């Protein structure tokens, strides 16, 4: 991961877990890969329009791009299709 680049919608980032709810597969303080599925920052689409979501959200994935968790809450962006994150898309409630 390039340190000078900023992550946008659909980018994969390295993050550290700050807060855990319940006993999950991930522990606090772990360094994980995740993909940004929702961002407040508008991102341009190929047809010229821009998309903005209500919050910033990421889904924790493994190095192969498959989500560690079993459920994904809320809508996700279309950009994942281009990144070939099929599993994330299939688990999502809604793809915007």
């Amino acid at each position, binding site marked *: 991961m390039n340190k000078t680049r900023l992550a946008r919608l659909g980018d994969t980032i390295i993050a550290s877990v700050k807060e855990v709810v319940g006993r999950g597969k991930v522990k606090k303080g772990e360094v994980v890969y995740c993909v940004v599925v*929702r961002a407040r920052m*508008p991102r341009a689409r190929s*047809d*010229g*329009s*821009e*998309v*903005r*979501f*209500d*919050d910033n959200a990421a889904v924790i994935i493994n190095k192969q791009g498959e989500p560690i968790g079993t459920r994904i809450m*809320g*809508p996700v962006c279309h950009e994942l299709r281009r990144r070939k994150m099929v599993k994330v898309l299939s688990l999502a*409630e*809604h793809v*915007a």
Partner: protein
Amino acid sequence: MRLEKCWFCSSTIYPGHGIQFVRNDAKIFRFCRSKCHKNFKMKRNPRKVKWTKAYRKLHGKELNKDATFELERRRNRPERYDRNVVQNTIKALKRIEEIRLKREEKFWENRMKVKKDKRADLEELKQNIHLVKAPVALQEDPSLALPKKMEKVKVKVEMREAGETRAMEE
């Protein structure tokens, strides 16, 4: 490619324009320009904002209930592709557009017509009688020329005249 409608002002959003906002409940709001987007962020209700189509249709300024709008309504039943159906739909689109525009024009004309009422003219005469004759002159000589209905009103004023002149002096 799909032409969407702006959520706020109901104008068409052409490709390359506007912003799409996706709320966490997966509802998508499309805006044609930043004006509409900013109004939405201010939490304004388009039904209360005067320049939007929603307001105009709600307050009867524009044609809202008409059969020509049925074409654009969303249908959830998928249609099997049939070349003839597509051709007919395209023809119908053009024709219905023509009809809709004509009906909207007529609606506007009818809206403008209603204001030409006789009552409005009479009100104007009552209010602006001072342009015809000075009010002082009218009070001194009530026999001055006025339409018959106006004369009746004058009689009522005379009966209360004593009380009224006192009020005026005060």
